[in-house]
């Protein structure tokens, strides 16, 4: 897509220069050199090269908060994506966090005959299969847990919990031994070529397994399969996030849950919330646990603040400030636990809390929604 077309499609020329986007942007709040309003302005007025070479095009978290607030209904996030895809073509790229290790892993995964060993997390008490109706898409969790072993995250817990829940509902999900990264981070980093290779591989593997429905616990994978894959490929399967499935199962009274005398608060992941409009399902699931109380953060649902980094790019002191501000907000609800539903939120918040210099007022236990539910299941 050319920049002109992107501007047209995102309706950027309707910008009123009201500045609401910059006023609500979590990045602009701390990084005063970044302003979505100015970038919209630049996209319309300046030369293409100047725009593509602007380092600020990589600073956006693509969290969509500005889109939510914009009175002119401008699709800033999609414009940013289109600009990044163009920028990559002339060799521009983001500053990758962790020395680009995550990006290297993803690009290595484009190798067609790769023989990954990524299934070690599947314990004996979890039932999975090689072919069947329903597939569970794990995502890059096995890699995350190794790469971030220094901050002691255990994102695979959510995968185990997801399979446990599916088993509980009488589903034995397919888990692909040669599943690839969904390509989300490469796409948002502007690398369309390798994104497509990963997508094609995943779609073929799913086709081969015979699955008609793919379940996700990772919101980024879900968004990528739901919105981005169909743009480039034909997908003959249904996709669903596990919270949607859980809400459905609760409606049919298929799940019995144990009491939990606790107060929790919930972090809306940007991909699940503003990108896909799933706000109520996770809340419905949380409120289904007897005695469990949900205390909302001041900024929730459509106004929720992102976890500070996106697509393993541009992690900086600004990210840390965003994370600490959000954690403080979570802490202010007086909740015992912060419930998450994205592996990246887990990594980013826990990384921020690991800093010895940050005080107690931001330290809060985190738990993935699926883990919370899997632990509360009666008759496991």
């Amino acid at each position, binding site marked *: 897509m050319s920049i002109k077309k992107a501007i047209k499609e995102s309706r950027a020329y309707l910008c009123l220069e009201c500045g609401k986007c910059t006023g609500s942007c979590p990045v602009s709040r701390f990084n005063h050199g970044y302003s979505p309003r100015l970038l919209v302005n630049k996209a319309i007025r300046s030369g293409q090269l100047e725009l593509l070479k602007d380092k600020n095009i990589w600073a956006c978290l693509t969290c969509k908060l500005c889109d939510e607030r914009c009175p002119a209904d401008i699709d800033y996030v999609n414009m940013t994506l289109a600009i990044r895809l163009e920028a990559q073509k002339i060799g521009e790229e983001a500053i990758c966090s*962790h*020395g*680009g*290790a995550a990006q*290297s*892993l993803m*690009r*290595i*995964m484009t*190798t*067609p*005959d*790769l*023989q*990954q*060993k*990524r299934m070690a997390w599947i314990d004996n008490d979890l039932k999975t299969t090689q072919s069947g109706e329903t597939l569970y898409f794990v995502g890059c969790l*096995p*890699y995350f847990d*190794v*790469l971030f*072993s*220094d901050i002691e995250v255990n994102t695979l817990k959510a995968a185990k919990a997801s399979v446990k829940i599916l088993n509980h509902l009488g589903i034995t999900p397919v888990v692909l031994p040669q599943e690839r990264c969904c390509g989300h981070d490469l796409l948002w980093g502007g690398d369309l*070529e390798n994104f497509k290779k990963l997508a094609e591989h995943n779609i073929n593997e799913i086709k081969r397994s015979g699955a008609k429905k793919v379940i996700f616990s990772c919101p980024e994978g879900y968004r990528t399969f739901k919105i981005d894959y169909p743009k480039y490929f034909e997908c003959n399967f249904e996709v669903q996030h596990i919270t949607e499935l859980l809400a459905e199962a609760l409606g049919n009274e298929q799940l019995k849950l144990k009491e939990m005398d606790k107060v929790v608060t919930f972090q809306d992941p940007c991909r699940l919330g503003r990108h896909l409009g799933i706000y109520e399902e996770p809340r419905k699931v949380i409120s289904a646990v007897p005695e469990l109380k949900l205390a909302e953060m001041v900024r929730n649902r459509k106004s929720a603040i992102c976890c500070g980094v996106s697509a393993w790019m541009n992690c900086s002191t600004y990210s840390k400030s965003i994370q600490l501000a959000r954690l403080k907000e979570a802490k202010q609800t007086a909740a015992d636990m912060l419930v998450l539903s994205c592996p990246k939120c887990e990594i980013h918040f826990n990384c921020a809390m690991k800093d010895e210099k940050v005080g107690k007022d931001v330290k809060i236990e985190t738990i993935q929604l699926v883990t919370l539910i899997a632990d509360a299941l009666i008759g496991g």
Partner: protein
Amino acid sequence: MNSQKAKFEPKIVAFCCNWCSYPAADGAGVSRLQYPTNIRIIRVMCGGRVTPSLVLKAFELGADGVLVATCHFEDCHYMFGARKAADVHKITEQLTEMIGIEKDRLMLDWISSAEATKFAKVAQEFTATIKKLGPSPIKKQMTGDKYQITEDIK
């Protein structure tokens, strides 16, 4: 098949630390010890700096093997650098194995600046191992302009 394998000249990246392994390689040169030209040395200030990202990048761009060479624990220039290298290496190893790169393609060794002979020996043995393994599973299937530099040795 056999004749093709015999012709295979692997590309091996060796990250050598400034204080021990790099001088060892230098020493090997000065003493005219022979070691295969497949080894491409990248000098780093400390083996502890060789994070998973550097090793993965090398494999992504078509390296057939990666050698990380640091000081011995006892005589590390930065005291903790060699230990750090060993810790980081454990993470790197897990990642490369998980993604399907054979274990033997990645090696960590400790070579002091006085051990020129050891450097030559490690280089010879590691090259022999990689030759036996053949081209890396990633390089074999690389496509696109980005990778043309490695085309000639496919």
